[in-house]
């Protein structure tokens, strides 16, 4: 992610007239400025008008637009550099053809003056633009959303497309035919894009750049790893074995010298969670993991362990001919897990509810996130009162997200953040190896909060090897 993006533009003034707008451009990385180029005025008002009319169209279809859900959601568009529609999160992109053209035109006008358009803020809409070699990605939100986060989200969506097509294929197809309609290649994969956008809005792993683990005692986890390793030992070209319990990681075993970044793991989570077919039959699917290698596909053997134990096993290889060998290995793994009662252990762990913040008996603590920075793993307790309803969960996530962004702002050395807000008191702490985010009732004092931190840390330390994957086993 480009961390050098320009400062979030504060445009909170809801009293601005609708025609007011400002544009953020940045020619150089750190240089930021507000732009009011007269030549742009026509295009910008054209854009906002068109957008408003098309978004009203969406509203008529009763898709979220006026609800809190929509307020926190972003509209996402993907188009080719020729201005042809590829994807629209809401509405039918065939009905938004004009809008896509206008967006491309605006970005091009700016580009033509050797500049780059990142954001447009109007009084009630906020646009973010991410231009890639062959594609343009645009997000629109009603709230003045965090600009860095919007760009990060667009990058995630771009990576999902790379994951489906590979960068090589995407580049080649547009080099050959710059009028290409990419929907021809993506048809059937829209569900992956849809669910990945949802992921970026609903899962803290996205802004924490981390994964969540299924709590298991370390001996059980080690035994699972051993069962997998011993069944796969003689298989060449096997890169990774990954065991998932929905969006929680049980174990990952890797070939020596190779690692997966959280954002690539998120793509794997998304592939599994949005494909029902793996539940009924083992799958053999190509997948590109952009941070590992954007140029080509890996081949993934995907299957669930058993009817009773719905953990999903992925065996990732670079060898396309390995299906039967991996299928056999999977059988062996299941047998070994079964023989050692590990299937049962996984099943039970998956049935157990997530931990609750309240079980730690820390006074006035409502919720927290604990992130281990060394392993990029985090703990996120079950939502409890008052975060038991989706609307509140959503604002809690936004709150965490802001905290996380503030602590991780580039070129700052903010370590501790304590804020007494209207409905919560929050504390963010960035310390060696750990990021900690605590949400308290309102009117909590700083000493109380610090006390809570110490208490919580003690509990977590005690359970550390259960809550996190501490070893990094290899084949």
């Amino acid at each position, binding site marked *: 992610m480009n961390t050098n993006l320009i400062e979030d533009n504060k445009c909170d003034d809801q009293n601005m007239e609708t025609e007011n707008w400002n544009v953020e451009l940045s020619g150089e990385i750190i240089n930021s400025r507000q732009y009011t180029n007269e030549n742009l005025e026509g295009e910008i008002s054209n854009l906002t008008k068109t957008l408003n009319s098309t978004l009203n169209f969406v509203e008529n279809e009763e898709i979220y637009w006026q609800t809190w859900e929509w307020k926190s959601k972003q509209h996402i568009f993907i188009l080719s*550099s*020729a201005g*042809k529609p590829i994807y629209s999160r809401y509405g039918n992109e065939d009905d938004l053809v004009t809008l896509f*053209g206008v967006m491309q*035109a605006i970005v091009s006008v700016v580009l033509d003056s050797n500049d780059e358009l990142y954001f447009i803020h109007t009084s009630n809409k906020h646009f973010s633009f991410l231009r890639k070699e062959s594609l343009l990605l645009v997000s629109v939100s009603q709230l003045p959303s965090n600009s860095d986060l919007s760009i990060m989200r667009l990058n995630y969506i771009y990576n999902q497309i790379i994951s489906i097509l590979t960068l090589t294929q995407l580049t080649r197809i547009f080099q050959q035919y*710059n009028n290409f309609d990419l929907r021809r290649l993506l048809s059937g994969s829209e569900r992956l894009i849809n669910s990945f956008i949802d992921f970026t809005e609903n899962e803290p792993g996205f802004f924490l750049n981390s994964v969540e683990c299924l709590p298991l005692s370390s001996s059980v986890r080690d035994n699972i790893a051993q069962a997998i390793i011993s069944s796969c030992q003689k298989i060449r070209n096997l890169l990774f074995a990954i065991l998932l319990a929905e969006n929680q990681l049980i174990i990952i075993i890797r070939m020596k*010298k190779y690692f997966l*970044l959280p954002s690539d793991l998120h793509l794997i989570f998304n592939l599994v969670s949005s494909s029902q077919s793996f539940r009924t039959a083992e799958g053999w699917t190509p997948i590109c993991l952009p941070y590992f*290698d954007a140029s*080509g596909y890996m081949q993934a053997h995907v299957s669930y362990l058993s009817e009773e134990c719905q953990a999903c096993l992925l065996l990732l290889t670079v060898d396309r001919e390995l299906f039967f060998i991996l299928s056999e290995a999977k059988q062996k793994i299941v047998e070994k897990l079964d023989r050692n009662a590990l299937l049962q252990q996984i099943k039970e762990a998956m049935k157990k509810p997530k931990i609750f913040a309240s079980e730690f008996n820390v006074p006035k603590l409502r919720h927290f996130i604990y992130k281990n920075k060394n392993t990029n793993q985090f703990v996120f307790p079950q939502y409890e009162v008052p975060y038991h309803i989706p609307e509140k969960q959503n604002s809690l996530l936004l709150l965490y997200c802001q905290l996380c962004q503030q602590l991780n702002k580039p070129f700052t050395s903010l370590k501790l953040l304590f804020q007494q807000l209207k409905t919560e008191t929050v504390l963010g702490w960035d310390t060696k190896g750990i990021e900690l985010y605590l949400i308290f009732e309102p009117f909590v004092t700083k000493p109380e909060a610090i006390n809570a931190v110490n208490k919580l840390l003690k509990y977590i330390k005690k359970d550390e090897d259960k809550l996190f994957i501490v070893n990094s086993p290899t084949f």
Partner: protein
Amino acid sequence: MSTKKKVLLKVIILGDSGVGKTSLMNQYVNKKFSGGYKATIGADFLTKDVMVDDRIVTMQIWDTAGQERFQSLGVAFYRGADCCVLVFDVSLPSTFKSLDSWRDEFLVQASPRDPENFPFVVLGNKIDLENRTIQSKRAQQWCQNKNNIPYFETSAKEAINVEQAFQTIAKNALAQESDQDIYNEFPDQIKLPGDNKLNNSDAGCSC
């Protein structure tokens, strides 16, 4: 979204200022003609669905002002066009003479894969006017010399030939688009470079 997508075609309209590009487009899309002339600011977009041989084709029509403003869109205006419509005013010889440079400009900027066979359509507009100076024969001759570009004489004002012209535009563009062969024999597979580490970032997740 269904697997059988509608087809989308990007159509751009070029020609000197005042030859009636916007009027043609309005006539075609909205079936109306406005007599007054208004310089187009930047690019204008209109969309229209047409049926071509049982397929629904959505035309994304990019219209631009005559000489100066479109320059600001640069290559993006032309990039990925499926068809280019060249318009002149039959009563103004200079607009006819410009066709050559519009066509050249398009081919340079859009650099289509097969310039010889790129689908152009030429429209001689304003045939409702009395003072016609470019005769059909001359325009047809020019089109023949450019690898038989289809030629239509239109009147945006009287709605003459507009529908037919755009039908041909859609048909020719569609024929071109269908030629695209996107299926390569083998998808790209990554290779492990022996013992060399891939370009993994140091920030690797050691989980």
